[in-house]
């Protein structure tokens, strides 16, 4: 595959790291809220979830920066224009959901004005609080935006399977170093 058909290496790397983090954070989130008070993970699991979430936030900022500065690969040959448009919109919507989840998560953690700690490495200060119900409303948004994002991830993977195995247009090579 030619270089102009591939995503730049930085985008490839962040794509796969994000995939692991987003799916991992979703599973961790679903699991940790059901832990009993005496579970040994009751305290560490949310701390890991928050720390990884902040890492994903900064990585996604770098990703957006790279996306806007690096060359975009050529569209796949023989795909209708509207399909490319739809794919672009879906990708854009995934970014949107990701930021909604990341910001609402930050708002839950900082609702009472406390900073959120990232692996005892550094912490992000609370920037603003909008009242007593912040943790609740941000929590609701965090939860449903996550369901929505995972639903789109499933769609994204289904589209990959269709292209890779049915249309055989080798899209895996666009987002990996495979030749």
């Amino acid at each position, binding site marked *: 595959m030619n270089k102009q058909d591939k995503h730049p290496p930085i985008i490839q790397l962040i794509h796969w790291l994000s995939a692991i983090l987003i799916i991992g954070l979703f599973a961790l989130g679903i699991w940790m809220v059901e832990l*009993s*008070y*005496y579970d040994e993970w009751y305290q560490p699991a949310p701390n890991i979830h928050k720390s990884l979430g902040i890492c994903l936030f900064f990585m996604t900022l770098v990703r957006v920066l790279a996306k806007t500065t690096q060359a975009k690969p050529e569209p796949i040959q023989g795909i209708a224009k509207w399909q490319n448009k739809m794919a672009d919109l879906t990708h854009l919507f995934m970014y949107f959901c990701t930021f909604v989840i990341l910001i609402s998560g930050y708002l*839950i*953690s900082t*609702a*009472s004005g*406390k900073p959120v700690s990232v692996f005892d490495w550094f912490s992000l200060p609370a920037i603003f609080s909008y009242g*007593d*119900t*912040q*943790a*609740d409303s941000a*929590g609701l948004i965090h939860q449903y935006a996550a369901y929505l994002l995972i639903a789109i991830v499933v769609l994204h993977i289904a589209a990959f399977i269709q292209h890779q195995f049915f249309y055989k247009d080798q899209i895996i090579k666009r987002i990996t170093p495979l030749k």
Partner: protein
Amino acid sequence: MRNKLTKVLLAGLTYSALSVSAWAANYVIDDDQKGAHASINFKIQHLGYSWLTGRFNQFDGSFEYDPKQVEQAQITVNIDTTSVDTNHAERDKHLRSDDFLNVAKFPAAKFESTSIKEVADGKLEVKGKFTLNGVTNDLTIMAEKIGEGKDPWGGYRAGFSGTTKFALKDYGIEKNLGPASTQVYLDLHIEGVRK
């Protein structure tokens, strides 16, 4: 004739109005919408190693109290359970959820006294119905009068403190916090301004 009837009616009305105010003074609790000289606090053991305290920031209520006729006294307090505050936003969120207070379904708790008697000088046994998480049970508050009298701004106030405790599971709160943390203790400090 008509005049006489009016007089009788007026006299009757005046008499009944007087008699109501005579048998008990009516007080409004000085809650956070007014001067906030009242608080509803709770505490529960954490792991059996310490006390975790919190409070409800929003509530209102009124009471009737006459020191000469304590058994005629009555108190009603309504608590907005969404206002639970333990100085930790994520814990408060958890307390509002259906693991604990279930405020989406039951945003109000209420205590309404059914009988009050003076068990010692200034010590009151306040029996009543307490509703929390949609469950109503009998609850007895041991209370004491702190004081009453004129305030510097032309009003008249009376204040009480009370304590009580109950088991979380009696109010349908089944979340397991461990063997040391099955009971919650309430500490009430109530100041009323006479109407």
